[in-house]
């Protein structure tokens, strides 16, 4: 079963007119696919990975359950991907995005922007602090609600590893109901997008921790044997 979603997934209605109908053209990776942009740690400000305070007024904080999300960025051979830029975005605790186009009636939190970023360390490790996002309704033809989720944008070593995905929370009853999650046919692949409660890193009387690893395609030298399976 394919690990990657097909382009056309009719239950997710937006895919109907935005999915190429031709098969993707396969090519052997060359210089452009095996290289990619890199970003220095000096890019990252001290609060870039703390969504609780990085948009808040001085002395204020975002409203919601405080959590830490952490894990490793790995390649398909389980090797850490170090010095890679990760960007995150999410709705606030009430399920509302700070975006011109989000008209959901749940209120904005004046102290929550909803974006963050970090660069993985030498072990491929990352972490960020945030509030747990709320589920939200979306127009898809029925009574559709997204499970609580955090969007991840991930750079690897090579351009061919570029990935955007979403992280879900263990136990969310909306996961099996969501047409976007269900664009992925393989239940194990869905399971690997689901963060686990991590009591070992949960700080008493402070915040809960969730563990989430992101696995990019094989290390660059093996990309050719490790084709995307989504076409």
């Amino acid at each position, binding site marked *: 079963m394919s*690990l*990657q*979603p097909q*382009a056309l997934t009719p239950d*997710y209605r937006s*895919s*109907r*007119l*935005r*999915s*190429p*109908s*031709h098969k*993707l*053209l*396969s*090519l052997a990776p*060359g*210089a*452009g*696919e095996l*290289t990619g*942009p*890199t*970003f220095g740690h000096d890019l990252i*400000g001290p609060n870039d990975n703390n969504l609780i305070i*990085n*948009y808040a007024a001085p002395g204020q904080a975002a409203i919601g359950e405080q959590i830490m999300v952490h894990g490793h960025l790995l390649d398909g051979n389980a090797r850490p991907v170090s010095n890679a830029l990760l960007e995150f*975005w999410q709705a606030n605790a009430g399920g509302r*995005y*700070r*975006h*011109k*186009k989000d008209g959901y009636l749940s209120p904005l939190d004046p102290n929550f*922007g*909803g*974006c963050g*970023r970090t660069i993985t360390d030498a072990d491929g490790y990352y972490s960020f602090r945030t509030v747990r996002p709320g589920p939200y309704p979306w127009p898809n033809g029925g009574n559709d609600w997204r499970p609580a989720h955090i*969007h991840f*944008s991930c750079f690897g070593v090579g*351009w*061919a590893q*570029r*990935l*955007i995905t*979403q992280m879900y929370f263990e136990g969310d009853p909306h996961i099996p109901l969501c047409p*976007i*999650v269900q664009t992925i046919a393989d239940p194990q692949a*869905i399971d*690997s*997008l689901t963060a686990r409660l991590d009591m070992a890193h949960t700080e008493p009387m402070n915040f809960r921790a969730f563990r989430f690893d992101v*696995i*990019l*395609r*094989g290390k660059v030298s093996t990309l050719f044997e*490790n*084709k*995307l399976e*989504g*076409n």
Partner: protein
Amino acid sequence: MTRFQSASQTAGPYVHIGCTPSFAGLENMYGGHDLGADIFSPDTPGTWVTVSGRIFDGEGMPVTDAMLEFWQADSFGHYAPQGGSEGWGRRAVDAQAASYSVNTILPAAVGDEAPHINVWVVARGVNLGLHTRIYFDCADNEQDPVLAAIDDPARRSSLIATRDGDTYNFDIHLQGDKETVFLNV
């Protein structure tokens, strides 16, 4: 080993919050500077041109929430010879017309590949980011292995930007009669 790769999920309509926060309306996030605004620093040698276009769905409607990323060689045919992010850029398309525009230098050929800009497309409704390439109608594209692998001349032309003065036009069609050739890289 291919079992273990994270599945892609759509970037959704609010990708801008994470990737181009100023565009999303978070004016002061990260010092107000959206990453990838400049593909090359202004003193980079080469022929500076503008590449612009629009992105459309299978019914010809503008895809107003798309984000595009670009990755290209410099005028010597090297990808980021100094390391870093020179040669990489990012644009949110315009929220009404789905148009984009970047200033960049014409890349040189790399090996047997004709000069091109690698493009990555994400949007609501796109489950897996789409790779394509911008070639240039002024260049010698005859020997390029990717273009040569496309049998239908009309489809081949979907990858070739057309020159109009200092501007090259490159539209992207996600589906339909004019569908752009997308690549499994």
